[in-house]
């Protein structure tokens, strides 16, 4: 592996290089989650949209497997960074009370809580 190859950026959000990814894999990280936790690849603003496939490809090559055989990491919400204050401002409405807390912006004819054909 050449030095030039080692310094290729794989995760642009977190500035993780191919050398760092390959080192983590050689040291035993063989799932996307393991590589992510050790290197932070996939933990930035794009949440792995760019590097996920590249990291999976590196693991697959190292393990001699097909990419589909590499354990995927979960796509937990939120899928992009959100301000804590914005989330905190959200008043959660219990779902057991259909219609309660409905916002004025919602369609006035929405069929919440009614039978499928009952509009």
């Amino acid at each position, binding site marked *: 592996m050449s030095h030039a190859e080692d310094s290729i*950026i794989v995760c642009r959000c977190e500035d993780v290089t191919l050398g760092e990814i390959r080192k983590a894999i050689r040291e035993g990280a063989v799932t996307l989650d393991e590589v992510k936790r050790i290197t932070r690849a996939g933990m930035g603003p794009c949440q792995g949209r760019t590097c996920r496939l590249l990291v999976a490809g590196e693991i697959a090559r190292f393990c001699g497997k097909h990419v*589909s055989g590499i354990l995927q990491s979960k*796509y937990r919400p939120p*899928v992009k960074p959100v301000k804590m204050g914005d989330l905190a401002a959200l008043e959660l409405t219990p779902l057991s009370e259909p219609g309660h807390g*409905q916002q004025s912006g919602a369609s006035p004819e929405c069929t919440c809580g009614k039978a*499928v054909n009952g509009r």
Partner: protein
Amino acid sequence: MIRTELAIVGAGPAGVCAALEAASYGVKVTLLDREQWIGGQLVKQTHKFFGWYEKSAGTRGVVIAKDLAVKVKANPDIRFMGSTEVLGYYQADGVLLLETPQGIQTLKPERLLVATGASEKMILFPGNDLPGVYGAGAVQTLMNVHGVRPGKSVLMIGSGNIGLIVSYQMAQAGVKVAAVVEALPHIGGYAVHASKIRRLGIPIYTRHTIKEAYGTDCVEGAVIWQLDDDWQGIPGTEKQLDVDVICLATGLTPLCEFLWQAGAEMTDIPELGGFVPLYDEHMETTAKGIYVAGDAAGIEEASTAMAEGRLAGLAIAYSLGKVPDHEFSRKRQDCLKELAELRAGPTSQAILKGLAAMREQMGKQARAQTRKKVRS
């Protein structure tokens, strides 16, 4: 919390056609998009389409987008929420979390259609983080939406339809296209697009890829080389190109985050671009009430995305009890026939193979479900 009968994530060709079809049966639709405009990628597609748009080929994508936007805005049953990003789908409650210009909101739909399209694939080469390395989508946005040229001279990586069309559009905009390189032994896109490039004197190098990009603060040049049968570069075949832009059109992969979050069964099908959901002939995934259409269901074209969107919109209206049986089966057949015709060409063989593989797994899944029910 907002409630709606049908939430559609993505106002591209698939999502909009689904919205119009469902709303034509009185379904109350909430159509979501992170952009403020309707049409998704169509708004930057200044080239003419081959597929049919209401039986008329030769329409430009940007014209189709305008037409669809007018129809959506005129429809009282569709509420378009632009500049709104979906942050997640919470399976236990069936709720979408939205980031709107007015703040964070929650949306609970009776049915959900995921029409989120695709994301671009990146490739690894030294210098791939230099300013001047663009995805083909970004170049199209810069030129065709904002009227800005990305640079003076470009190397295009990838000869699929996107690579060929964007190369041609850059040439039209006065950008010198130094070369198009393609790792495969053959050109990926339609011959008609490739011929337009070749007539301009632009070389297309098959079995070639980029070795490296170089430059101090931005791209100042690129080196390409030939690949052997094991996809390794052959020393001695390097060519140096003076370019300030490197454009990547190295493929798309379905964007299915919300389907993963919904617990839909997913499968990796290379012909469809990567992980895709299993779905039935109504475009419904294995997560009940959650549908998929367009590139999120497998990378194809806007014409098939529109037909899939119509099929999904029809099936959703039917599932809500708003379409009579006979009308549903007739219109469903029309949609399936249109899809079959759009996929009849020789370039669609791989897509058909991928779809057959997906359906086989869907069939296995359904049989396993039936056995479980019989036993219990």
